């Protein structure tokens, strides 16, 4: 991509309200616009499209963040960013020629008078209005007025042309003709254009990229659609292009999802935030479910260091041995929160495994990385050193490779499957996956019931230490920095206890910083070694330099869990999108056509940002760029289906709309 002409950097726009308070119209908008590009901003009315356009024009200033044009910040409007306003904004007391001349005479000061006159006539001609040059705007039709406005804008040769719903008020026929003309003119002039529209076909016909904005308040970029239809485009030809209907349905689906989200929001009563009657004085009691492992270090630290009691929270950690039990208790409302696998929130919403769909949300990621695949020692003797040699071994075998996972549909399973598939091993055909409690894995390996397992560093390290197995792959071989455990709770619990939830998350984040801090390492080991957490074995698990047990004296070490820093806490929609591709890849669910709706209601990064701010950390947002996993395939959250289609062994890329579970309180949590 050529260097950006215009860069929208982290723009947030807040408007003060008359009755006090404020309205956040746009939040954290990032967008690069390349020279010569045609961009459409699409979204429902009131989503802040025009607000964003006005910011680009410099007519208003962003509350935070900035907009750069050629590297210089935009602080005021100027003729290099000419706007074609929604209602044309022609001066009614001036003729067509005078309207254009006013712009030209003011902007093109260095040109001679004859040149300016020539320029005016040229542009009147360009939009085919020579016959009407001496008419007043009131004597022109809507389409003609719009052409005058476009001519006025182009006459001053702006670097960026900003169009605010340029054809909104026109009849269909005029609109079609004008779109075609605009397209030709923009192409000839090579002018970079940003157009606000709510017309899907218009956006597709004209744009190189369509930027979809989510609903306000706090509107953001929901999706960016690349329109790779060949140019020059003709309306009818474009419509016959095989990609057209895919793009069109993608856009319409986005808009429909946004409408449903809006309706859900309107239907849900405003959350009674800690009404005095409902909130008893004193600390809030919270039951938090978890399975022992290094992932819970932040929870332990926050408990022992008193972060929760500082935040007026009384947290009761509830330890489980099996994920299934934890999930049942969460569904039953006996737990307020749980530290679950990163896949759990989506799996709960989709109701995988025949369960009823349950409206889970996640406000933050608790840990990243920290997994390893451990194979029985005998494979090392068979010279299985990497995925290639494992695949070769698998071919010759009569029975499938038996591998244990802690939970069906967990992040670990997805990583394992992805890694196996990347090496040509089909995880369903060539491998038998068993669900085992992580605590039972070592024993099963010893008994020869399984050939290997994927688990956290803690389990794997113990097995390696016992000489039973060795590490064949780690996170680094699959997806470095993948989300491993996230915080999960019921959507309406989060709505009703958002303040409590934020304080909990903020405490967890402060604790996570300590877990990441080398200086505090010894204290952490001591703390986790206490019997109520991990026990004495934790000291071993926390040892920084783990060896992979593969005999080689090398620099290969098990990667550490990541608790904090570099966007570790982000509840990242893009990662959720990847998880959805995997659900679909292994045939567990259809790929949801309304994924944006699903993901935006599940991944509550707004809560994460607020919690980070509350904890005193700067809130870095997830980056929108495509990211690559260890296999080198790049994943673009704006086009997950293309990724899915490329993956080996993808069962199906069928797309179906899913019904989101109603966020109404179905569990007796509130009554507790």
């Amino acid at each position, binding site marked *: 991509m050529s260097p950006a002409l215009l860069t929208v950097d982290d723009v947030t726009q807040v408007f003060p309200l008359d009755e006090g308070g404020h309205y956040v119209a746009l939040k954290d908008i990032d967008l690069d616009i390349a020279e010569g590009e045609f961009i459409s901003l699409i979204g429902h009315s009131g989503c802040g499209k025009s607000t964003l356009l006005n910011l680009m*024009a410099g*007519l208003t200033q962003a509350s935070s963040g900035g907009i750069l044009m050629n590297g210089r910040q935009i602080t*005021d*409007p*100027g*003729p290099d*960013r*000419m*706007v074609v*306003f929604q*209602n044309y*904004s022609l*001066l*009614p*007391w*001036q003729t067509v020629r005078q309207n254009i001349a*006013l*712009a030209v005479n*003011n*902007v093109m000061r260095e040109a001679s008078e004859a040149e300016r006159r020539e320029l005016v006539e040229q542009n009147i001609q360009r939009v085919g209005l020579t016959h009407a040059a001496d008419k*007043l*705007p*009131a004597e022109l039709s809507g389409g003609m007025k719009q052409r005058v406005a476009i001519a006025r804008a182009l006459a*001053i040769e702006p670097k960026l042309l900003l169009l605010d719903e340029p054809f909104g008020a026109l009849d269909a026929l005029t609109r079609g003709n004008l779109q075609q003309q605009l397209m030709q003119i923009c192409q000839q002039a090579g002018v970079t254009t940003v157009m606000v529209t709510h017309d899907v076909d218009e956006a597709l016909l004209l744009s190189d990229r369509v930027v979809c904005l989510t609903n306000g308040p706090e509107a953001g970029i929901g999706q960016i659609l690349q329109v790779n239809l060949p140019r020059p485009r003709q309306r009818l030809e474009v419509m016959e292009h095989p990609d057209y209907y895919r793009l069109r349905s993608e856009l319409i689906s986005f808009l429909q999802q946004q409408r449903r989200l809006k309706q859900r929001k309107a239907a849900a009563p405003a959350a009674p935030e800690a009404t005095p009657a409902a909130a008893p004085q004193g600390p809030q009691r919270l039951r938090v479910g978890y399975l022992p492992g290094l992932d819970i270090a932040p929870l332990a630290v926050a408990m022992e260091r008193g972060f929760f009691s500082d935040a007026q929270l009384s947290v009761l950690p509830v330890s489980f041995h099996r994920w299934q039990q934890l999930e049942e208790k969460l569904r039953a409302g006996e737990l307020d929160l749980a530290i679950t696998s990163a896949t759990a929130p989506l799996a709960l919403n989709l109701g995988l495994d025949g369960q009823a769909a349950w409206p889970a949300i996640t406000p933050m990621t608790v840990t990243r990385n920290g997994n390893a695949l451990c194979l029985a020692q005998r494979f090392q003797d068979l010279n299985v050193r990497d995925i290639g040699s494992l695949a070769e071994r698998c071919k010759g075998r009569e029975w499938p490779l038996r591998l244990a996972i802690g939970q069906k549909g967990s992040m670990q399973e997805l990583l394992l499957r992805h890694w196996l598939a990347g090496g040509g091993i089909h995880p369903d055909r060539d491998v038998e996956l068993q669900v085992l409690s992580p605590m039972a894995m070592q024993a099963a390996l010893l008994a020869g019931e399984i050939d290997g397992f994927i688990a956290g560093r803690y389990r794997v390290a113990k097995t390696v230490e016992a000489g039973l197995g060795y590490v064949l792959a780690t996170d680094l071989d699959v997806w470095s920095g993948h989300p491993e455990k996230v915080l999960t709770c019921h959507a309406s619990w989060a709505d009703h206890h958002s303040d409590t939830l934020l304080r909990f998350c903020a405490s967890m984040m402060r604790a996570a910083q300590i877990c990441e801090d080398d200086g505090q390492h010894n204290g952490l080991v001591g703390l986790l070694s206490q019997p109520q957490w991990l026990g004495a074995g934790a000291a071993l698990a926390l040892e920084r330099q783990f060896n992979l047990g593969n005999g080689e004296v090398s620099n290969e070490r098990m990667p550490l869990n990541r608790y904090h820093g570099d966007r570790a806490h982000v509840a990242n929609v893009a990662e959720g999108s990847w998880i959805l591709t995997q659900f679909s890849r292994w045939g567990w669910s259809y790929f949801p056509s309304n994924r944006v709706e699903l993901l935006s209601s599940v991944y509550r990064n707004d809560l994460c940002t607020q919690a980070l701010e509350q904890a005193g950390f700067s809130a870095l947002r997830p980056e929108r760029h495509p990211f690559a996993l260890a296999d080198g395939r790049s994943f673009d959250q704006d086009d997950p289906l293309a990724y899915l289609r490329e993956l080996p062994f993808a069962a199906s890329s069928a797309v179906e709309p899913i019904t989101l579970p109603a966020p109404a309180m179905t569990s007796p949590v509130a009554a507790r």
Partner: protein
Amino acid sequence: MTAITPASRFRRPSKLRRLQPGLRNLMPYLICIGGFLIAWQILSLILGVARLPGPINVIVETWDPYISQPFFDDGGTSKGLGWQILISLQRVAMGYGLAAVAGIAIGGVLGLNRFIGKGLDPVIQVLRTVPPLAWFPISLMVFQDANTSAIFVIFITAIWPIIINTAVGIREIPQDYTNVARVLRLRKGAYIRNIVIPATVPYVFTGLRISVGLAWLAIVAAEMLKADGGIGYFIWDAYNAGGDSSSSQIILAILYVGVVGLALDRLVAYMGSRVAKGGN
């Protein structure tokens, strides 16, 4: 079904319309005004011609010299109605002219400068409700001259709508036009010339039109109080004279006052429509 050709269906009414277009348009006026005059005449018969002359009496009694010779001049204040009206119009022209110039200037400042506009708004709101004649005594004290005082009363009566409308007009310049000016980075002069003035003209003329009506109201009242000559003076003089035809003279003068007031209003409205090109 009987076939009726469009031509035969539409010919008759269109023919009628073409035959008597003027008469058809005048019918409502003729009937209503005629009715009014008849009612007046009847009322005059009931009350007695001495108390309220009917329309016929008015014309008969004032025909000579007031209707037939509008511009006679017997010296002193004994002048034809045409002269009297011209004297009043002269005063109005001076007071109103001053009010227009000052009002547009002040209104322009108030509209362009939010601080002054906001600060002076209460003063304007109070003063504009003062009845014209309430200004008369104080202006007499200040100017010591009836003619100047009358002109001042007209000035002070006429100025408020002009100020207010000019200021509002400037403040109400559509955001679209100011946005265009900002994007094009119009200089102050070009901005005022191309946008402020044309966008404000319709408002200014609304103010001017209200003001001319007020000015005409005020002059008649002021002249009745204290003046030499003028249509207001004429009315009061006729009343004081108490002659046989006094009532008729007064009624005729009232009619003239009304007609001139209407003419002034229409004149300003016409000028406004000519100046405000394109409109809003």
